């Protein structure tokens, strides 16, 4: 039986359909990602699975408990780290965990050792007596993850766990999530709008857009599902009429699209395509201001399935070669 089972889940707010007939299953021990832009319905979906919002239609079974019929069964089986930072800033890290351990009825004799262990796991042991209000965003997020684990849940839900964190903190949180999953075999469902996060952490990713599930598979298979291995992105100056069609006619090019002045050219071989593109540009009197080549990412997958881009920031893997053409 899947740890999470969702069938035809729908949420309406008046006429607005926030989540539209979504179905998927998450086997035990998997890190599963819901990837989509802000407003795609990810948070609503996670709130329905964690009993915070009642579904309008459909079924969601979490750890074997129906979210409608047995919400308490769901709540005792899951740890939830909401998008907002919900730890009490006026309490210390240890006090926050103590309160949650008491809410879940963790026996008094076990609490101390458990909390020490959790604080060590999230690298906050030395800050156990510090007020949470003095913590950085990354420290607070790590504390929230520890708090979500205080009652040894079977499934951990993380809603945008690294939003608003600096790159170092994001990496720390990623490492922690991976460590947790490795050590405890915990099932983890996270939402994110960072494609690199979904790519790095998740065994399978469901791409959500406008409340609908548009694709679901492993990141590798999702990337393989689009007919390109690499993408050339360029900003052209002095592009003549019919420039896009001219690019598309090159034998090395699979598809051409343009978003906010940047031309995206998919190809099987980036280096070969780039040569042909620059040659064409030279012949037609266009010049490339900025050119990058990168392997296909989930952003390209999202673009492929939705016709829009998901990108929030450029990944460090991207190679900027525009200086070669100055």
């Amino acid at each position: 039986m899947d740890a999470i089972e969702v069938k035809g889940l729908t949420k309406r707010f008046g006429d607005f359909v926030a989540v539209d007939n979504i179905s998927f299953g998450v086997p035990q021990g998997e890190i599963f990602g819901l990837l989509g832009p802000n407003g795609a319905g990810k948070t609503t979906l996670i709130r329905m699975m964690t009993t915070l919002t009642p579904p309008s239609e459909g079924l969601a079974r979490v750890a074997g408990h129906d979210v409608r019929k047995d919400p308490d069964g769901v709540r005792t089986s899951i740890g939830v780290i909401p998008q907002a930072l919900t730890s009490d800033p006026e309490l210390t890290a240890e006090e926050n965990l103590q309160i949650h351990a008491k809410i879940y009825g963790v026996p008094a004799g076990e609490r101390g050792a458990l909390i020490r262990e959790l604080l060590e796991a999230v690298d906050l042991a030395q800050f156990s007596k510090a007020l949470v209000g003095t913590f950085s965003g990354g420290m607070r997020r790590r504390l929230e993850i520890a708090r979500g684990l205080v009652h040894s849940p079977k499934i951990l839900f993380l809603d945008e766990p690294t939003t608003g964190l600096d790159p170092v903190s994001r990496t720390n949180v990623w490492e922690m999530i991976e460590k947790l999953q490795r050590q405890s075999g915990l099932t983890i469902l996270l939402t994110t709008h960072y494609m690199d996060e979904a790519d790095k952490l998740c065994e399978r990713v469901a791409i959500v857009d406008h409340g609908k599930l548009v694709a679901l598979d492993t990141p590798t298979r999702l990337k393989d599902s689009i007919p390109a291995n690499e993408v050339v992105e360029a900003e052209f100056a002095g592009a003549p009429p019919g420039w896009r069609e001219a690019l598309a006619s090159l034998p090395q090019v699979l598809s051409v699209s343009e978003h906010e002045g940047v031309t995206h050219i998919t190809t099987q071989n980036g280096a070969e395509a780039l040569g042909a593109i620059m040659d064409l540009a030279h012949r037609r009197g266009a010049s490339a201001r900025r050119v990058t080549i990168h392997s296909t990412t989930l952003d390209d997958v999202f673009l492929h399935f939705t016709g829009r881009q998901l990108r929030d920031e450029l990944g460090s893997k991207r190679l900027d070669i525009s200086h070669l053409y100055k």
Partner: protein
Amino acid sequence: MKPYRIFALIERDMRKFFRNPALMMASMVFPLVQLVVLGYAFGGKITKVRVALVDKDTGAEALPVRNGLNAIVQDPQTFRLSEYTDLPEAVTDLRAGFLKAVIYIPPDFSQRVLRNENPRIAFIEDNTDTFTASGIFERMQQLQNSLNGPVLPPLEPGQSPASNLAGLFSPNRLPASIDIQTVEVYPYIDYIKYLLAGSISLSIFVTAMIGGGITFIDDKARGLHEGYLSTPLSKVDLVLGLIGSGAIKGLMAGLVITVIGGLIAGIPQLWEPLRLLYLVLVLAVTSLSMLSFMFLLMVRVSDPLVPRAIFGVLNTLLFFPSGAVYPTAGFPVWLRAMSFVDPFTYVVEALKNLLLKDTGFAGIRLDLAILTGFSAALIAGCILLFKRQI
């Protein structure tokens, strides 16, 4: 300085202001509420307070006194008379706060009147409430004047002196001058002592407003509550936990003000254990009722401005009609109705009974019962209205 920048800021704030009904109410409507409530809460004529009459004489000369008292009952209705046959019983009820005064006509009153041997009636007053006591005493003095020796009115033009003397033989006049002997059942009460009960209730109210209103909604606005909603805490757990914590804070604030305020005001025998126990009991029930009241008001609110905006008017609507600063007997009917449903009224009464009269349990049991029932009903309402989901 660029005027367009200033105008941009003004526009921003005006747009926000007009889109916030709570703020508009607070600034435009609530001052009017305060004007009306405060305007009628001070200095009104005392009416319909309960006064005991113990007539041990029942003779012919006591009759004019009784008639005079009954006339006051009819108009201006300063008090309502309750007949008692036993003076100690009446004084016990006076001490327990059920009566505001006792009028005692001694057994030899008629004989003394007829013999002209300094006839007296006793006016035993609850001097913890000086406004009410002086209001009743003023009527008693008027009664005394009307009963005592003739005071000839000036002759009207054309009136014969004989007709003017007819009033001397009115059945409502006594042949001898009587005295009213005032007995105060408590030592002198300063206004600071009178005000103490109100200050204690106010301290609990402020704590309830912060703990049950502002903190709850601020936590909601910051998203902190989401961390609790995803745990197995039930609606009952959440409501009782949030009200309980606020009530404990209110109790602590109330205790501090009781002790320090009691020492400043000079409340005698404050440390008497049984009295302290009753005080803790009243403060605990008060905190619970105020917290549940505040929580019910705020249970569906999510705008952090709302509790701040209504703080002042709630204070006015609850504190001033309670009798904390002026007796409810001086209020007009509509303000008395407010006072009747205002939990502060019962808090102030119970605290005054304990602090100023040391009535023991008899003086607080009714207030405790009302406040407990009030809290239970409000908590039930909170549980019903609390949204367990987002």
